[in-house]
């Protein structure tokens, strides 16, 4: 099976540790991932803001970079959702039948990390060790667009040393929403403030999620509040082992 990493533009530029964690985690599970250098972004920032024409060359870059692989793994529910549910819209808009055919190939082969681990590799215990009090926020696109269900939870529960606490009102949106966070900053912040409050109420030390964009938003608020909660991508928790020093997986 030829597996590739779609690291996502946000992780590539802002959160490389998440990409590294995915590589380390999969390698530990016996899967060597490739990283096609031609990849950039899934196009979601343009699509969700309404710039469909602008998204066409970006989606084309995506399908070109990932053509021919068996599985595309991405540490982002949102980007997986974009590939599976939005690329077809962009391709239709382009009027290019070749692009329509290409996205029909790559879309279904794109897996969010927890889906890949549980469904494709068939593992829930990935051999991680993470001795911290953790709460998990199921991001909207993982939860509702992809329907990852309790997969991330099952993965986290199998981590040794972890103390997993329920996040109240977990399924409610954190308020990030891509350009929503800028175009409707006040509403976004009001939503984020409530999410941050629920996180603080858990007494968790680490907030975990499967999307760094959402974590950047909630984490940025928690940081500003000096709440004493850090945020980590699910991949980084799952990659952590006894050999890691402290929490810096």
């Amino acid at each position: 099976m030829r597996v590739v990493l779609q690291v996502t533009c946000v992780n590539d530029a802002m959160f490389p540790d998440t990409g590294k964690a995915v590589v380390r985690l999969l390698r530990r599970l016996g899967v060597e991932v490739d990283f096609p250098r031609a990849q950039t972004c899934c196009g979601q920032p343009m699509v969700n803001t309404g710039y469909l024409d602008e998204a066409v060359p970006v989606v084309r870059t995506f399908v070109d970079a990932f053509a021919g692989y068996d599985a595309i793994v991405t540490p982002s529910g949102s980007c997986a959702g974009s590939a599976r549910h939005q690329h077809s819209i962009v391709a239709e808009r382009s009027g290019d039948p070749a692009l329509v055919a290409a996205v029909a190939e790559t879309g279904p082969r794109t897996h969010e990390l927890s889906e890949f681990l549980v469904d494709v590799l068939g593992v829930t215990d990935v051999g991680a060790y993470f001795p911290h009090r953790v709460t998990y926020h199921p991001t909207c696109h993982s939860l509702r667009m992809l329907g990852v269900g309790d997969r991330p939870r099952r993965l986290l529960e199998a981590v040794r040393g972890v103390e997993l606490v329920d996040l109240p009102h977990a399924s409610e949106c954190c308020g990030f929403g891509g350009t929503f966070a800028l175009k409707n900053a006040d509403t976004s912040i009001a939503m984020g403030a409530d999410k941050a409050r629920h996180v603080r109420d858990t007494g968790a030390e680490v907030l975990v999620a499967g999307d760094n964009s959402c974590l950047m938003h909630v984490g940025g608020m928690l940081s500003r509040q000096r709440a004493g909660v850090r945020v980590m991508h699910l991949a980084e928790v799952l990659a952590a082992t006894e050999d890691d020093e402290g929490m810096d997986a």
Partner: protein
Amino acid sequence: MSGTFVGMPAFPTAAREALGDTQLRRNLAHATRVIRDKRAQVVAEVEDWEELRLAGAAVKEVALRDLATHLETLEASLTRAGATVHWARDAEEACAIVASVTKAHGVDEVVKVKSMATAEIGLNEALEAEGIAAWETDLAELIVQLGDDLPSHILVPAIHRNRAEIREIFLRRMGDVGRPAPADLTDEPAILAAAARTHLREKFLRAKVAVSGANFAVAETGTLVVVESEGNGRMCLTLPEVLVSVVGIEKVVATWADLDPLLRLLPRSSTGERMNPYTSTWSGVTPGDGPQEVHVVLLDNGRTRALADDVGRQALRCIRCSACLNVCPVYERVGGHAYGSVYPGPIGAILNPLLHGVADEQTASLPYASSLCGACFDVCPVRIDIPSVLVDQRAAVVDQHRGDRLPKPEALAMKAAAWAFSDARRLAWAERASGLAGRVIGRFSRTSLPGGRAAAGRLPGPAAGWTGARDLPAPPEESFRAWWDRTDGGRR
């Protein structure tokens, strides 16, 4: 009588103001939470809820896709049953029809059942201009009307008001328009409801003309359906001599049997009940029982515009249950007024642009009034994929501005991003630049995230929208792709 939404600012501005209203925030948080939980409970009772949703969506879709045929059938069966059918291209025509029917009977007042269509066309204001008083009889509508206020929810138009505010409105205003509220009125909901009962009863008993909407209109039988709770609907549909119903053309279903999934879906989604207290159905005139003169106004007012939209057409399936409002995290915080329409919340954010287009700034701001979290789609009883329609309407807004001589900064930014994202070498170059910026921030910033990573605190300019309330992690010095190249994917 009541206010209008004309001249409302665009959503972000209206939202900012609403977010600062602490009383509103509390009222809304409480009310949406209560109704959300009630819905979840009764929906969980239905084992095959998902199949029921599919059936509900399908019967509406059947009617919409062959709408002309069903409308003609409806017209014929209504006429056969003794009703007079009128057609109205827009709000103005519809209001004029209602006014002329009312005037033909020489009366200067009508009683009204809560109806979204009549709110949409501004019927009360139009009748007022003709010297006809339109009395709202639904408790929440009465609160809105007496308070010179605007509705902020489809089902519970006064959701933004709490009991103390309602008591004050009743005491201050009821006497001006009819029987005053008792002087010892308390803010107990039961006492307030009793005051409304007494106030409205004299209006019901003397009214000659009633105006309603309809939740459904069955083409094959000419049956209109009104779903309600308080009995004010039954009063209006039964006691007056003349009944005028304003019905959006999308309310049609093909057959009597098609009502089944909808009558099961609506109450559970809407009020969170297995069945609402009262549902009335009638087909034209029944000799000796109820109004002996029955009019039905079939209303377009933008619906054919929405019907022509391949993605947006599904919005016409909406049965106005308001479940999408109640679960919407944006609605919960800003309330209904910020949407500037009688249709607020997620459905309003798609329906208003579909009905009227996105040429004006206020309507164009609505498709963006969502974080695309998808909670609305999950609860919608007729499976309207609201997030997809939102994205499609955003595209309509963008397309509207493609010819602008002076492109918006956002358009330039998106074009630049698309350029960078269309070629990995350009992206790598941009990442090197951001890495440099990260180094600068790391050097000078005194902010760091929990865990130690350097961050930017408050920044000026375009970044202020983000950093006003959130620390921003400094970009790493090395991007993932640079790391991969340097270490051969961690193998070196």
